[in-house]
């Protein structure tokens, strides 16, 4: 259920195949559909010798090797998930730019929603506390004056 919801969000967010600034013409697959899939996979894989780039955006040799590998496996019939799993089994979770959904990353994926809810609760309590502040009770003199004023109003 959560997976489906998050996938839907991902669909909205992934508006188009992103430009890849290091892919070389000789690497690209002839079939544009397969090449687009290779770009999708490339966007999920981190270049491990670079600082914060995907394999599609890095000029490093390792990135080049991985791009070629990804395209080979896609041409060979692997699905996107299978290609990612292939690379992940060799390099570990760190190669994924999208952190996995597991117990260890519960606070990561759930954190934003948790904070939003906590904040919402705090705000609700803030408003309710305001409402609960009663006005101090009127003294007998004040009550008589109030009655007199109200009485004047209705007489006129």
């Amino acid at each position: 259920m959560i997976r489906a919801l998050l996938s839907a969000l991902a669909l909205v967010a992934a508006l188009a195949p992103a430009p890849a600034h290091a892919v070389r013409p000789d690497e690209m697959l002839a079939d544009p559909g397969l090449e687009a899939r290779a770009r999708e996979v490339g966007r999920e894989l981190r270049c491990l010798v670079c600082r914060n780039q995907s394999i599609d955006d890095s000029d490093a040799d390792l990135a080049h090797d991985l791009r070629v590998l990804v395209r080979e496996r896609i041409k060979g019939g692997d699905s996107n998930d299978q290609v990612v799993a292939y690379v992940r089994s060799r390099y570990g979770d760190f190669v994924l730019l999208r952190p996995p959904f597991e117990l260890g990353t519960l606070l990561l994926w759930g954190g934003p929603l948790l904070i939003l809810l906590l904040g919402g609760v705090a705000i609700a309590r803030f408003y309710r506390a305001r409402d609960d502040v009663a006005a101090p009770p009127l003294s007998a003199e004040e009550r008589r004056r109030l009655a007199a004023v109200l009485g004047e109003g209705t007489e006129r």
Partner: protein
Amino acid sequence: MNKRGWIFLIPAAVFGLLAAGFYAGLGIDPNVLPSPLIDHPAPRFALPPLQGEAQGFSSADLKGHVSLVNAFASWCAPCRAEHPVLNALAHTGRVPTFGIDYKDKEELARAWIAELGNPYTRIGADDGRVGIDWGVYGVPETFIVDKDGRIRYKHVGPLTEADVERTIMPLVARLER
């Protein structure tokens, strides 16, 4: 502090935890990645030899005994720094070291070996694909493979004598039993 007051301590408490985390984090090297292949069988591969050599390096060479597998390249400066350590280790004859020449030019690799010495029982020339199967993302990296061909340990970066003495040799001894 009144009942309402404790809530104001939360930011300070959260920050305290974070600061402790940062302090601990200072000791971690963000560039050393753990290998998911630990305790898994080594990948199957067959690498061609360097030009002029007779035999390359394949997964069959790893069966039956504890081995070290070292990924290196002539273009890698830290590899040069760790080479004397590998030479010394080979000299003791305790454990065979196999070399993966990673994304290198053959003539340069041969010249490098000729200049610095050859601690390797076998060397295989790799264009990078076998390195990917081993999870190599930089050189030098060194793996310890046990008698059944399982990867048991990975060392990222150049080996020092201290590393060999404190980590590598004790593990090798344990695996040989």
